[in-house]
């Protein structure tokens, strides 16, 4: 690494100056010896203003998971900044300046931002701090050892002289950066782990926070698209005469279907459609309702959800080869050992995201370049796909990044951006803001993959869980190539575990995509099956789980992170202690438990329900979380609370009904979500750890609360509901 390029001072428009630095870049080596032009390839998180204010650039996507604040905290902690003087800013996408390999890139998903950015940002903050200290020491004719940083000042231990960051920044920027800056130790933290106000709060409560849907560009028009109501259908013909007669309508153009990249990355789908371009949203909407369109509905036009599920059942019941196993792959059929067996099938269905800010993108295709304005979890993917599909050089594609009103995985895909670029181009290279209506969102969108989990457990003569078999059928592969040796099970100590998988992608009647916690949603339903085994054995579900875990044991499931039995035990004990577990309840009420990891974070939940005339009320949810170091306690709790509500919405109301290829639930009156009057009390407790590494938790709670809820319904009613949405009338 060329350390001289690690940090530099560059003149800033408006008379300030800027400290730019880059972490550990390969890119840096490549520019060794070049001059100011090298700035373009320097990662750049920070600028210091003459008054000492620090602007921190948030390169990850803010979609409600709170990275703006947590990343700023990580950086400010090592810098010893006054957190109130740290402002945040969302820079335009720049894959060259922010390469994924070294600075993390813009890609935001998998609850990965704090995991990935913690080492980068702490080192970056410490680097700048040491340079400020050195600058002060030089100015005061003393050694760096005699100086320290505190609350936005450098202080001389001997003389008590003080200098602000703003005064020192220019001189500091001229110094060579330290090779190995010293990180603070955890007991010296004043920002991390302490209550901090979210950096976006003042804007949020006054309505000033800008989302992609608020972008305004000179000359901008509005676009709405009538998309084929059937997945994989095509446009046959259309008549726009009535639509064109609506005042304010400028153009009617078509958008092409695109079955996105099927290779090593993440497939997506764009349905063919007819787009109205008008001078207002309202004119576009009125005109769209007047379009006469004939669709060629294709293979899915006659299929319903029931047809698809019958097929999934066939595939689920049919035996295949294992893709992963521990112990004996055929143990479940070993009659010498298995004296009693139990089977159950659980289904996590298709579910829409219902991101409250619907998909939208403002795009301006200009012939040899293009510009976009939107909130996206993955601008690099957009740039790659626009390059591939429209032949524009990557450098000519400019993506202005906005926070968004919810992402949950859906905004990781480039489809909305590509649609908007198609429309802008077809309309004659004018800027257009394309918005999906809520009905569009619920009826023509990509959804959570359908996951069918077929479980079988084999108990031996001593009622020990000897064999666990499970088969998953799913409508999305991710970038996995099966057979892989991955197991979906929890970290339980079971001697023989077997996992089979079948891919239903080609049979799916809807496009599947990333949906908060992705595959863990189906996988965590194994926590219901564990509950069934405990019930069969007449064991307390908590005690039964503990009996399957061993302090110190680590389960290798083929995932990056091994599953720590100690940490599973830790969250289970904590949730038991905090939840009245084991206290008697009146008839019609029940308590259910579940525990599951996400990445290297762990969560156990106890849910309490009341069931009256088959109506389920969720009274209370208690969560215990081990996510390593908690960066922002309030934000962390918020993510768990929100995950609980998210999971309960899925449990109570999830699922996409499909008839004749059409998703029939339109707006929120047909597709319900949990509302305030249904929302239980939610309590969240964190396991105290010595860790200095945080593990992401935006996707941790929702897969766990679903089995905890279903297990509570069983405790209250004696009925096992094995499919979402949870409807007791059908059982």
């Amino acid at each position: 690494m060329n350390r001289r390029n690690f940090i530099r001072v560059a003149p800033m428009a408006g008379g300030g100056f800027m400290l730019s630095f880059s972490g550990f870049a390969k890119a840096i080596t490549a520019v060794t010896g070049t001059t100011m032009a090298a700035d373009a390839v320097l990662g750049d998180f920070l600028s210091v203003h003459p008054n000492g204010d620090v602007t921190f650039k948030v390169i990850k996507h803010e979609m409600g998971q709170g990275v703006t604040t947590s990343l700023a905290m990580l950086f400010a902690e090592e810098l010893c900044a006054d957190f109130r003087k740290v402002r945040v800013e969302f820079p335009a996408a720049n894959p060259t300046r922010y390469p994924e390999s070294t600075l993390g890139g813009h890609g935001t998903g998998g609850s990965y931002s704090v995991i990935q950015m913690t080492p980068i940002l702490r080192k970056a903050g410490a680097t700048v701090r040491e340079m400020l200290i050195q600058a002060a020491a030089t100015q005061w004719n003393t050694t760096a050892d005699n100086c320290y940083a505190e609350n936005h000042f450098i202080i001389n231990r001997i003389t008590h002289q003080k200098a602000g960051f703003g005064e020192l920044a220019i001189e500091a920027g001229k110094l060579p950066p330290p090779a190995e800056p010293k990180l603070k130790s955890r007991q010296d933290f004043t920002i991390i782990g302490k209550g901090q106000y979210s950096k976006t709060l003042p804007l949020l409560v006054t309505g000033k926070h800008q989302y992609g849907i608020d972008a305004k560009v000179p000359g901008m028009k509005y676009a709405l698209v009538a998309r084929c109501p059937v997945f994989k259908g095509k446009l046959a013909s259309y008549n726009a005469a009535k639509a064109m007669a609506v005042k304010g309508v400028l153009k009617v153009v078509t958008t092409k279907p695109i079955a996105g990249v099927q290779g090593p990355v993440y497939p997506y789908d764009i349905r063919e459609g007819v787009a109205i371009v008008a001078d207002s949203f309202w004119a576009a909407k009125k005109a769209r309702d007047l379009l006469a369109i004939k669709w060629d509905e294709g293979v899915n036009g006659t299929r319903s959800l029931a047809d698809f599920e019958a097929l999934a059942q066939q595939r689920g019941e049919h035996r295949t080869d294992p893709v992963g196993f521990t112990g004996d792959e055929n143990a479940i059929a070993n009659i010498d050992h298995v004296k009693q067996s139990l089977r159950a099938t659980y289904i996590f269905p298709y579910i829409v995201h219902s991101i409250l800010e619907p998909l939208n993108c403002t795009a301006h295709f200009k012939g040899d370049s293009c510009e976009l304005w939107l909130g996206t979890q993955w601008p690099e993917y957009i740039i790659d796909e626009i390059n591939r599909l429209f032949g524009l050089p990557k450098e000519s594609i400019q993506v202005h990044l906005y926070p968004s009103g919810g992402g949950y995985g859906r905004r990781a895909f480039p489809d909305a951006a590509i649609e908007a670029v198609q429309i802008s181009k077809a309309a004659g290279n004018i800027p257009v803001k394309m918005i999906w209506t809520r009905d569009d969102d619920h009826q023509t969108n990509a959804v959570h993959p359908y996951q069918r989990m077929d479980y079988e457990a084999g108990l031996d003569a001593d009622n020990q869980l000897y064999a666990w078999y499970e088969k998953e059928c799913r409508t999305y592969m991710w970038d996995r190539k099966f057979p892989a040796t991955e197991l979906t099970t929890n970290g339980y100590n079971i001697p023989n575990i077997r996992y089979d998988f079948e891919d239903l992608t080609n049979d799916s009647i809807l496009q599947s995509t990333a949906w908060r916690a992705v595959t863990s949603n189906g996988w965590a339903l194994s926590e219901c099956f564990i509950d069934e085994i405990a019930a069969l054995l007449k064991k307390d579900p908590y005690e039964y789980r503990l009996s399957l875990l061993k302090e110190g044991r680590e389960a290798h499931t083929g995932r990056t992170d091994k599953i720590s039995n100690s940490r599973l035990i830790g969250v289970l004990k904590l949730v038991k202690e905090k939840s009245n577990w084991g206290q008697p309840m009146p008839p019609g009420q029940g308590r259910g438990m579940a525990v599951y990891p996400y990445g290297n974070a762990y969560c156990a939940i106890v849910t309490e329900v009341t069931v009256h005339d088959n109506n389920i009320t969720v009274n209370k949810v208690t969560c215990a979380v081990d996510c390593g170091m908690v960066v922002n306690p309030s934000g962390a709790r918020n993510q768990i609370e929100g995950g609980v509500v998210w999971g309960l919405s899925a449990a109570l109301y999830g699922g996409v009904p499909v008839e004749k290829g059409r998703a029939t639930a339109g707006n929120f009156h047909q597709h319900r979500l949990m509302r305030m009057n249904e929302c239980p009390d939610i309590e969240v407790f964190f396991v105290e750890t010595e860790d200095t590494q945080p593990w992401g938790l935006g996707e941790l709670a929702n897969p766990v609360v679903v089995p905890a809820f279903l297990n509570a319904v069983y405790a209250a009613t004696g009925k096992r509901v094995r499919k979402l949405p949870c409807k007791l009338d059908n059982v």
Partner: protein
Amino acid sequence: MAFLHFTINGEAHSFEVDAQMPLLWLIRDYAGLTGTRYGCGIAQCGACTVHVDGKAMRSCMLTCGLAAGKKIVTIEGLSPEGTHPLQLAWIKEDVPQCGYCQAGQIMSAAALLQDTPSPSAEEINAAMAGNICRCGTYVRIRRAIRTAIALQDKTISHEQA
């Protein structure tokens, strides 16, 4: 098309618009006040909540024709400095996640507190049931409303003292 007059946050505005257009789009795209949000367009989510003559209304279902001449207040006009007790309480309780629903939540809560200064838990739930928060911040919204009531009471007793 009609030439209509509106009072939004105390300011007079006139636009030539389709009288059937929902007020939401006038507020957002004509008056440029983007704090009022589109979430459903059919009065199901509350993201577009504004005050019309002091009452909480879903601006996505109210036509410009009907709103013309009325006093409209959006989140930007709730308090000049952003210091309405609810806004302060929202900050104190660190309510939002993505924040997209929150302007609507605050406007619904403000109308509630205007009519019912000390609502019961049930009254809070009932008044707020029309506002969806996809991020699931309901427990914080409830807490923040109670905090705002306390702040309000403090101000009142302070004023009386």
